[in-house]
């Protein structure tokens, strides 16, 4: 192992003098990440515990250029890329192959922020309303249903689906009541 290539990639805040740091090293066996706890008064001297994870490294293999598309978010139906563009009050969802060929565009008539694929439909987030709204859209031609109110959340910015529940990425701070 080469210490010179080790770097800290994320920190936990120190609590009562105990700190945690994730250090990462890329090797020919994969990416090693250590989850290390140490005491801030004795840096490097006390390890309460340390775990090492191994995961497959990713390398850039292709760049898809979409000139003229103001990309706000992407999702996938498992085969295609669903690209949310930015057009005032009418954000388009483009259905692309993974090589970047545009197959079809659906004009949503909405100002959206994020997409998620449920296995049969797209769910789209319209953030900023109180509550925030989500829509269900049948691609490639519609219709859409909703809106369904969710939240309100503080800066919701990403959507996902785990097979049963919709997942929403947000900041921890509660939005003040308006």
């Amino acid at each position, binding site marked *: *192992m*080469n*210490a010179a290539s080790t*770097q*800290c*990639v*994320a920190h*936990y*805040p120190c609590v009562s003098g105990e700190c945690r*740091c994730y*250090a990462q090293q890329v090797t020919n066996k*994969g990416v*090693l*990440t*250590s*989850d*290390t706890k140490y005491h801030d008064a004795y*840096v*490097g001297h006390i390890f309460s515990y340390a*775990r*090492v*994870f*191994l995961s497959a490294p*990713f*390398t*850039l*293999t*292709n*760049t*898809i*250029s*979409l*000139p*003229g598309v103001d*990309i*706000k*978010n*992407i*999702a*996938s139906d*498992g085969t295609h*890329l*669903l*690209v949310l563009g930015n057009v005032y009050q009418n954000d388009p969802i483009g259905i692309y192959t*993974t090589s970047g060929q545009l197959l079809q565009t659906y004009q949503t008539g909405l100002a959206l922020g*994020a*997409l998620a694929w449920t296995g049969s439909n797209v769910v789209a987030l319209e953030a900023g309303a109180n509550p925030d709204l989500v829509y269900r859209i049948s691609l490639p031609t519609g219709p859409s249903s909703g809106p369904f109110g*969710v939240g309100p*959340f503080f*800066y919701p*910015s*990403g959507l*996902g689906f*785990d097979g049963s529940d*919709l*997942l929403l*990425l*947000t*900041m*921890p701070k509660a939005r003040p009541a308006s």
Partner: protein
Amino acid sequence: MNFATVGTQSFVIDTGTNISGTPLYDFAEHNGNLFLGLQGVNNVYEFSNGSLVQSIPIPTSFGPRGIAFVGNDLFVADRSSANIYELSPAVGAPEPGTYGLALLGGFALAALRSIRQGKLG
């Protein structure tokens, strides 16, 4: 940053990552792991069971605007350049997982040495 269910919010997953003042952009789930992108940070962070397992550098200019998987390939959108980057996992890479003492000694010592030398963080 939190990762919560909507509708009747049933639970919140705290990623445990503290990157001060950094708004969120997007996330994706793949093989049970969470891939997270942050505004202004040109990485995608992979979490497994709440623990960071790797930080993947992405050639975006202001962080990953969107993250998606098609098969095992990771696609990351960059709004500024209007590019979508495709990243593939290394062929023949070992199964992801948590490993113990065999790897722990050398790496922990390497991390320890780097902390002492002020190289971490």
